[in-house]
């Protein structure tokens, strides 16, 4: 079967390529209860009497000597360090409550959102983030009680103005980002849109070609467990872009390059 390569591997030499071919074969489709081996257990697995089994329908592989399973479906479970896109749903005392497309809502404390002193007797917090605002934020902590804390301290964190949101299966986010961001960068460049991908399965798209970019992201999600996807997407997208705007190509590329720096996508 066709499976994806690990996205954090640089693909250069033939030797490396062969190794990857090997890794590809070892990555297989598993379902709950499938026996993976007797070595160390990583995420997506459980152990009974020294044997490692899968907890999900997903792709199993050995990473750093551990068996892991990347699920092909499921809700977003917040992890520290993840960049997520969320919506402000409430403001309580000195905190914003943020819906992060997960069973657990997140909290953004004032001190992690705004630089300097804010006099709450004079200022209304909606001045910074209002109800319904969309933000890109980083998860700074998740405790055992599944209380999730967000931070806006990283420079890539910001409010997302306008544009539109697309929902994808959180487990498929790494596919949308691509190896070292290759997939999302390519879509941005060719469509001339700004794209921000949250690990929580929310993708924000803004630009003249929003429709095309959104459609492409959903195509990537749908075909996510196929090989050679980047090339395939590139080819089809180039055709579509040519049909759309045959003249203004140059401008678009320039604009896209600008956007590169703004976006805050994450890698697995």
């Amino acid at each position: 079967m066709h499976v994806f390569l690990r996205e954090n591997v640089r693909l250069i030499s033939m030797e490396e390529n062969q190794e990857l071919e090997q890794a590809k074969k070892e990555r297989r489709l598993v379902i709950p209860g499938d026996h993976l081996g007797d070595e160390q257990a990583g995420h997506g697995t459980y152990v009974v009497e020294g044997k490692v089994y899968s907890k999900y329908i997903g792709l199993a592989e050995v990473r750093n000597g551990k068996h892991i399973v990347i699920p092909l479906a499921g809700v977003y479970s917040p992890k520290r360090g993840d960049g997520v896109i969320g919506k402000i749903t409430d403001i309580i005392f000195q905190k914003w409550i943020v819906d992060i497309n997960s069973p657990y809502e997140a909290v953004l404390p004032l001190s992690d959102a705004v630089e300097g002193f804010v006099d709450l007797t004079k200022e209304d917090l909606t001045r910074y983030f209002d109800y319904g605002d969309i933000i890109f934020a980083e998860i700074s902590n998740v405790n055992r009680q599944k209380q999730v804390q967000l931070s806006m301290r990283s420079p890539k964190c910001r409010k997302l103005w306008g544009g539109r949101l697309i929902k994808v299966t959180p487990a498929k986010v790494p596919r949308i980002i691509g190896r070292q961001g290759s997939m999302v960068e390519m879509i941005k460049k060719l469509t001339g849109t700004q794209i921000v991908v949250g690990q929580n399965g929310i993708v924000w798209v803004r630009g003249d070609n929003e429709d095309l970019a959104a459609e492409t992201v959903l195509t990537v999600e749908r075909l996510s467990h196929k090989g050679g996807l980047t090339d395939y997407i590139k080819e089809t997208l180039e055709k579509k872009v040519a049909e759309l705007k045959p003249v203004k190509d140059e401008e678009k590329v320039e604009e896209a390059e600008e956007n590169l720096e703004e976006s805050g996508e994450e890698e697995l």
Partner: protein
Amino acid sequence: MKESKVKDEKRVDGRDFDETRPIEAKAGILHRAQGSAMFKFGSTMAIAGVFGPRKVFPKHKEKAERAILRTDYRMAPFSTKERSRPGPSRRSTEISFVTRNAILPVIVTEDFPKTSIDVVVEVLQADASTRCCGINAAVLALADAGVPMRDLVVSCSAGKVNGKIILDIAGEEDTEGEVDMPVAWYPKRKEITLLQMDGIVTPGEAKEILHLALKGCERIYKDMQESLRSKYTIEESKGDV
């Protein structure tokens, strides 16, 4: 005296005594549900959908250290020859309850504390073994939804008709059925998670029926695993542009 539905050698529908009706299983059939599946035992058909893990409403039902599983077994009014009254009945409440207990042991509830996993089972066509059919559909839907699970639970029934012990009583046999025993099985742990029985049997017969039902479960287990794997392999070939 009318002709019996179970003769010496074969059953009225041509099956062997230890054979189930044809099984059909398909995961991922609905759009809005997080996970979904259809399961058929011959003409008995159930569809299951899963929502969650999600926030618990009402909040007081929430468990601090694990997810709660909620199951809702329903029968469509047109699923039986005589129209069945829509809405919950005592029967459906009890089946919802035993379905939950049958499935719960495989769910890794501690992975999603303070959430609920909601399973809805809709029986569209009823010709015996609806609870077994519903459990199988629910289990496939849960796996399809990406809910963490240790294994699949499989369900099948066996019983006694005209003195013969047979697997998966259905159709005309049902009206002559003396004993019916629905069973659910957790294969990896070799544990029975659902066990009910109606009808008069000797202790020896009860044990024999149980063993036959488990034999059926083991076979259906393979079919269910296959249906889950095929959902993704089929998508792959389709995607090869």
